[in-house]
């Protein structure tokens, strides 16, 4: 494939541009939530994340202090102060008193509100409101203003989701589910794969065909009977039906066909001479498996481990059916789904939670991509 099919400069340039566009489409969405998760939560809704390095401007409403704060000066009644209170100053560009015209007056000018009432609002938030008559009422004047705030990045969102929204706990739950659900099927599948590849026994061919058939059986087929079974077992023994043990075994069952298939095709390809010379030396099948086959199969074991890890970590369906949709033991994906329902518009929570859920798979993926690709190729090109 080293043949250059397009030789002109223009066509080579076109290839670079085209790939660049593809790369952009495939990375920008993820970048969006990463950037947003680090932004101040008020700024997330004030401007698009692609503008996050520019000052964001937003129109806000505030209320001046009530009449009780007024002072009388030279026969005029005056209210003065800073609309931001003691908080961080932002830069006001314009203000108004009607919601229909929130930016009627430029900052720093004095607005005539009728009946001799004047209001001046400066860029830094200080205001002076004057009137020939005393102000009345418990509620101060409503003021609208457009302000711009400098870009603000923070890790507050992470602190919030990890410790108050329950994502931290779900993170631990995900690990608790994922690690055993990755290790157990490897062990069981490796023994079965060795037997199916190198031991002779009746029914072997049928067993292989059954496993290949089971490769594509939709998960949906198993859900209802297993849910009934788990509920039945739970009632019979008086134990909870939604347990970690239950979900480990479920993931083991669903992962086994692929595990056996992948491992068997690799183990069957190991050189026959090694096995035979070991057998002549008096090694039993168990010794051959543990001392020769397992070490030689490391690459394929790693491939499957990554697959299973990503699959279990990213799974929502099995987790929702066998661990439930609420409670202390739910995993990250289920938690994120619950947050989508309860915190629908709170993008600072959603983007941050989403990033926490995808960070582990991304690290695994980037550090072990070689094994992942190898497993992908072995798993699909050879017939599955």
């Amino acid at each position, binding site marked *: 494939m080293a043949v250059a099919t397009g030789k002109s400069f223009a066509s080579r340039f076109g290839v670079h541009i085209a790939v660049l566009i593809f790369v952009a489409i495939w990375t920008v969405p993820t970048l969006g939530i990463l950037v947003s998760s680090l932004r101040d939560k008020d700024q997330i809704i004030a401007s698009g994340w692609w503008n996050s390095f520019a000052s964001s401007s937003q129109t806000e409403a505030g209320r001046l202090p009530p009449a009780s704060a007024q002072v009388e000066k030279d026969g005029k009644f005056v209210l003065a102060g800073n609309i931001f209170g003691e908080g961080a100053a932002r830069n006001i560009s314009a203000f108004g008193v009607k919601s229909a015209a929130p930016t009627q007056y430029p900052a720093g000018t004095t607005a005539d509100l009728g009946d001799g009432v004047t209001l001046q609002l400066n860029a830094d938030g200080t205001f002076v409101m004057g009137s020939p008559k005393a102000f009345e009422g418990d509620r101060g004047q409503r003021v609208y203003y457009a302000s711009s705030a400098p870009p603000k990045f923070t890790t507050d969102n992470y602190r919030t989701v990890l410790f108050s929204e329950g994502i931290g706990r779900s993170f631990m739950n995900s690990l608790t589910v994922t690690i055993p659900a990755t290790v157990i099927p490897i062990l*069981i599948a490796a023994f079965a794969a060795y*037997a199916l590849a190198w031991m002779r026994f009746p029914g072997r061919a049928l067993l292989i065909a059954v496993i290949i058939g089971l490769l594509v059986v*939709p998960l949906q087929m198993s859900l*209802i009977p297993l849910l009934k079974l788990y509920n039945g077992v739970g009632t019979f023994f008086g134990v909870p039906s939604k347990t970690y043990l239950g979900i480990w075994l479920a993931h083991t069952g669903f992962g086994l066909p692929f595990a056996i298939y992948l491992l068997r095709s690799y183990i069957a390809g190991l050189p026959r001479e090694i096995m035979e010379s070991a057998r002549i030396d008096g090694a039993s099948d*168990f010794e051959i498996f543990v001392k020769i086959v397992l070490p030689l199969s490391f690459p394929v074991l790693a491939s499957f481990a990554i697959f299973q890890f990503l699959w279990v970590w990213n799974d*929502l*369906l099995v987790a929702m059916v066998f661990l439930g949709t609420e409670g202390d033991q739910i995993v990250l994906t289920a938690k994120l789904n619950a947050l989508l329902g309860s915190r629908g518009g709170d993008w600072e929570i959603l983007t941050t939670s989403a990033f926490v859920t*995808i960070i582990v798979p991304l690290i695994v993926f980037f550090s072990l*991509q070689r094994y992942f690709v190898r497993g992908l190729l072995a798993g699909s090109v050879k*017939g599955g």
Partner: protein
Amino acid sequence: MAAQIFSAIFVIIIGVGGCVAYFWGANKLVDIIFPSRGVQGAAAIDNLRRQGMIRPWLFVGPAMIILTIYLIYPVVETLRLSFLDRGGGSFVGFANYEWAFGDREFRNSILNNIVWLAVVPAACTFLGLIIAVLTDKIWWGTIAKSLIFLPLAISFVGASVIWKFIYEYRGEGQVQIGLLNAIIQYFGGQPQVWISLPFWNNFFLMIILIWIQTGFAMVILSSALRGIPEETLEAAVIDGANPFQIFWKIMVPQIWGTIAVVWTTITILVLKVFDIVLTMTNGQWNSQVLANLMFDWMFRGGGDFGRGATIAIIIMIAVIPIMVWNIRQANKETGGH
């Protein structure tokens, strides 16, 4: 938290240790019951033969038991349940199937699934192939491939949040924080609530799956393209074929088998698509699909297992042709080894 970590580690050790203990112990037991060392002549040969008969079953035993409980028994049971009423109490014949084909939501799901099946595998395979060919020609192709491959590691729920943020809608004239509506507004268009547009919302959900799966197609096809003998390409160049002819007439025909594998793999995935629909729309605005409808019926109003099982069976029926084809291919390849 610490207690949870400890109990997790403890249980991991028990679980994994239990597996190891089983395989080691069972093997030892066979050696003790049928000793082959230290026994003379015919007895040793006899025992060796017995060991050879028993040991394979010890090795495949746990796998067979788990596969039977978690996959084989459920397939039979789901089929049985699909002919029973909601609680699994009484036999109702084909009533659940009759209900399904008369149900508006079910028919909508079937229709949507067909659209998904027509669009997603084709789009993933096509885009994957294009990207594989293009990235092969440039020096930073490996990096580009890595980045396009990356969404494959992201969960469907995570991807749904990512894209929901892109589709986010604010009223016309307001600041759009969703990328898609911002672009549309920038060019003077009308912002839309993309995921509630009937029929078209399906495509906005499909984009998510295409975004995830294109990397898969790309990696597999890229490796297949590398396997094309260079002489065929060189010959085509010498004969004066243009790049498009080389692509369609030389490269694509040589990797048909791989394209079929990629296509069927993604097809099976599409039939099972659930998370994306659940998190984006939960089937509202006519975007329902079979897998989500099934999940819905499992729990709706206390759960209707008869209807849920019926929907699962219909998904299964769609998969069977691919299953048969797979088994045939595998039999051809292994040829009895």
